[in-house]
C-alpha cells in the first residue's frame, strides 16, 4: 500500500508537544483554559475566543497542579462508577460478538471495544434531562446513559422487549425516558438532530421560560473522524456557535472509517482545529484515558450549561475490533493495534485505582463478576423474550394516523361532522 505505514507517530507527536506545553497559545491570566467570561463583556469574549483556540494545555496545567497536590482526580465512588460502566460496555460488546456469531443477532452490528473511556468519561457527567445523540456505534452510549442492558440486548435480538420493541435494531437505539435520541445509520445525520435538541433546550429556557435551576440541558453529539469531512458537520458547527447552543460535539477519532484511514481522507487531520474556525473552542484529548476525558468533558458540559455555547472535543481513541462484525479488518497494521491495545482504557483505570488505593483488586474483580452476571442475565432475558407480534408491523408509523388525535368522546376528531365546518373544538 502506498499510504504511510502508520502515522501514529506523526499524530501523537503533536499531542505530546501539546501536553508538554510547547505550542501553548497565550492564555488569559486566570490560567484555566476555559475561562469564564463575565456576561455582557463583549470585548472580553472576543479576546477569550481566540485565546481558547487550542486548549488541551488546560490538562497539562491541571494535571501538574493535581500531581503536585497528590490527590487523585476522582473519589473512590466516582472511580468505581467509571470502572463499572467501562467494564459493562466491554463485556456487553464482547457478548454481542458471541451472539452474532451464534446467529442471535443479525444485520449490521458495530462494536465499541476500546472506546469505552469516551462514552463513560462524558455520559456519566450528564443528568437524566441531558440528551445523547449517537451513530450506529451506539450500544455503549445507550448503556452509559442508563438504558438497561437487558433492553439493549433484547433490541439487538429483535425481540418485543427491546428498548424499541425490536423495530430499531443495533443502529437505531432510542429511549425517550433516558433522552437517548438515536442511533443513526447515516454518518453526520445525528449531528443536526443533536443541534436541534440543544436548540430545543435553549428555546425552552429562553422562550418558554421552563428553566431548570442547574442551567441549560446539555446535548452531546457523538460521531467519528469520517463524519468530520461531511457537510452537515460544518453546517452545525456554524449554527451551534451562531446561536450559542448548549451542545458538545464529541469526535471519537479512532483513525479509521471502515477501511479509509483518516489521514488519507482528510486534508487537515487535526479535527479539533475546526472548532476555532467557527468561533468555538477546539480541544484534543487522549480518548484512551477516562480521567482525562472526564476533565475535558466536565469543562465542556459546564460551559454549555452556563449558556456559553458549544465546544468541539476531539478524543483520540481506537476501536479494537473491525468497523462492524462483517469487517475483516485487514487494512489496519498489527503494530498499530498492539500499540493501542497496550493503552486499553479499562486496564489503565484499574491500574490507577489500585495505585491510588481507591479500591483493591478483589473489589474490582467483584465488579467484573457482577457485570458478567448482568450481561448473562441480559442474554437470558433476550432469549426468553417473545418476538414482536404480527400486529406490530403496522403500528407506530404515525403518532396519530388520522390527525388531531382522539377527542374527548373517544372517537377520532376528524370523524366529528362539525370538524370540516370549522366549528369543532380542537
Amino acid at each position, binding site marked *: 500500500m502506498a499510504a504511510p505505514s502508520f502515522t501514529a507517530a506523526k499524530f501523537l507527536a503533536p499531542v505530546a508537544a501539546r501536553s508538554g506545553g510547547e505550542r501553548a497559545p497565550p492564555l488569559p491570566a486566570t490560567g484555566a483554559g476555559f475561562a469564564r467570561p463575565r456576561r455582557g463583556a463583549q470585548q472580553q469574549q472576543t479576546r477569550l475566543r481566540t485565546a481558547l483556540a487550542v486548549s488541551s494545555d488546560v490538562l497539562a496545567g491541571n494535571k501538574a497542579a493535581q500531581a503536585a497536590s497528590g490527590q487523585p482526580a476522582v473519589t473512590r465512588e466516582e472511580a468505581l462508577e467509571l470502572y463499572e460502566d467501562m467494564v459493562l460496555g466491554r463485556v456487553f460488546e464482547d457478548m454481542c460478538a458471541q451472539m452474532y456469531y451464534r446467529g442471535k443477532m443479525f444485520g449490521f452490528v458495530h462494536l465499541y471495544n476500546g472506546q469505552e473511556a469516551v462514552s463513560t468519561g462524558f455520559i456519566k457527567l450528564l443528568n437524566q434531562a441531558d440528551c445523547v445523540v449517537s451513530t450506529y456505534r451506539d450500544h455503549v452510549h445507550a448503556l452509559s446513559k442508563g438504558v438497561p442492558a437487558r433492553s439493549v440486548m433484547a433490541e439487538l435480538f429483535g425481540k418485543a422487549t427491546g428498548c424499541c420493541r425490536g423495530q430499531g435494531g443495533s443502529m437505531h437505539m432510542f429511549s425517550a425516558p433516558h433522552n437517548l435520541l438515536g442511533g443513526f445509520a447515516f454518518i453526520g445525520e445525528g449531528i443536526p*438532530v443533536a443541534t436541534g435538541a440543544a436548540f430545543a433546550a435553549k428555546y425552552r429556557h429562553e422562550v418558554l421560560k421552563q428553566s431548570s435551576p442547574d442551567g441549560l440541558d446539555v446535548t452531546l453529539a457523538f460521531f467519528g473522524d469520517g463524519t468530520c469531512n461531511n*457537510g452537515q458537520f460544518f453546517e452545525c458547527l456554524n449554527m451551534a456557535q451562531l446561536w450559542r447552543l448548549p451542545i458538545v460535539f464529541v469526535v471519537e477519532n479512532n483513525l479509521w472509517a471502515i477501511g479509509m484511514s483518516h489521514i488519507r481522507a482528510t486534508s487537515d487531520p487535526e479535527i479539533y482545529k475546526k472548532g476555532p474556525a467557527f468561533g468555538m473552542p477546539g480541544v484534543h484529548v487522549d480518548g484512551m484515558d477516562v480521567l482525562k476525558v472526564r476533565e475535558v468533558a466536565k469543562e465542556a458540559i459546564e460551559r454549555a450549561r452556563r449558556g456559553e455555547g458549544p465546544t468541539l472535543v476531539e478524543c483520540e481513541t481506537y476501536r479494537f475490533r473491525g468497523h462492524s462484525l462483517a469487517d475483516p479488518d485487514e487494512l489496519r497494521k498489527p503494530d498499530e493495534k498492539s500499540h493501542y491495545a497496550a493503552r486499553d482504557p479499562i486496564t489503565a483505570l484499574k491500574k490507577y485505582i489500585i495505585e491510588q488505593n481507591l479500591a483493591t483488586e478483589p473489589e474490582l474483580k467483584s465488579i467484573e463478576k457482577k457485570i458478567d452476571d448482568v450481561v448473562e442475565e441480559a442474554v437470558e432475558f433476550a432469549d426468553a423474550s417473545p418476538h414482536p407480534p404480527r400486529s406490530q408491523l403496522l403500528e407506530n408509523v404515525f*403518532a396519530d394516523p388520522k390527525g388531531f388525535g382522539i377527542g374527548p368522546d373517544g372517537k377520532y376528531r376528524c370523524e366529528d361532522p362539525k370538524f370540516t365546518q370549522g366549528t369543532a373544538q380542537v
Partner: protein
Amino acid sequence: MLGVARRRLGSGTVLGQLVQALRPTAAPASTTAARNYSAAAKEITVREALNSALDEEMSADPSVFLMGEEVGEYQGAYKISKGLLDKYGPDRVLDTPITEAGFTGIGVGAAYHGLRPIVEFMTFNFSMQAIDHIINSAAKSNYMSSGQISVPIVFRGPNGAAAGVGAQHSQCYAAWYAHVPGLKVLAPYSAEDARGLLKAAIRDPDPVVFLENELLYGESFPVSAEALDSSFCLPIGKAKIERQGKDVTITAFSKMVGYALQAADILAKEGISAEVINLRSIRPLDRAAINASVRKTTRLVTVEEGFPQHGVGAEICMAVVEDSFEYLDAPVERIAGADVPMPYAANLERMAVPQVEDIVRAAKRACYRAVPMAATA
C-alpha cells in the same frame, strides 16, 4: 400562459386587518364559489391565508417556531411570513444560513425534543439537500423508536413549476414524499385549503410535508366566516369534491384543481358533467372519496403537474383498479407534466405542463367522445 382567472398581489396583512377588507369577486370561479360557500363576501389570497394560519398557530402555542431562509427580516422569500418577525421576535422566527441539511436536521432534533418547528424551504427543490432528514430522521423515527419519539414538524414551501424558472426550480415532489410511510403530504389549492390544512399540519404530531404553489400565492379565493375563525382546521386525509358531476371524475391537486374546474366548465358546455375532486391530501390519499366518485361516474381522469412515471396519478389509478375495477367503463386517463426536465423557453414550458385543453381532451377520451389528434394539432 397560466390560464388562471385572476391574480392579485396580496398585501400580506395579518388576519385582523384582512377581515375588514372586502374585494369584489370576478370571473368563472365565482359562480362555483356562490354554489359552494355560504357567506362568500370575503376573499383572501392564499398568501394571506398561510400568513394568518402561521400567525394564529404561533400565537396559540409558544412551542411553535418558524425557521428557514429569509423568513425573518426579508419577510419571507414569497412574503408568506410577513410581519411574523416583528410580532414574535428572532427567537421564534429564525433566519437560517443556507444550509438545508443542517437546519432541517436541527428542526427535526428540536421536534424530537418537544418543540413544534415549521421548516420553510424556499422551494421544495432545495429540500433534496435535506431529504435525508425528512425521510430518515423525521418520517421513520416514530416507527424505529416504536412510538417513543414522535416528530411534530411541518416542512413547507412552494412546490412544482413556477414561471420560467428552469429545470432545477420546477420539480413537483408530491410523488417523492408521498411514497414514504411516516410522512403526511398535503397540497392545498384554495385559500380555505391553505388555512385549514396548514393549521392542521402544525397541530399534527407527525411530520407533514406541506406543498404550496408559488403561482397560487397571489390568487384570491372567497372564504367563509368559519374558515376565518382561529380554531378552523381541515382534516388530513380527506379530499374535497369541488364540483359535483355525473359523467367523469377528474382528480387534481394544487394548481391543477383550478385548471380542472375550468376544464369542467368547458366540458359542461359540451354536455359532459365532470366531477372535480380536490385531493388536498396526497398521503394519506382519500381512496374512499375517489372510489365513491368513480363508482358514480365510471370514468376517471387524474391530473398532476409532476412527471408521469411513478406519479400520483399512477397511484390513484391503482387505488381505483384495486377497489372499483368492475365499475370502470373506460381506461383511466392520466394527465401529467411532460417527461422532461422543465425547459426554460416560455412556449416549451407551456407544453411541458398540463393545460386546460389537455384535461378537456382526456375527459372526452374517457367518455369515448374523443376528437382525433390530427384535428387538434
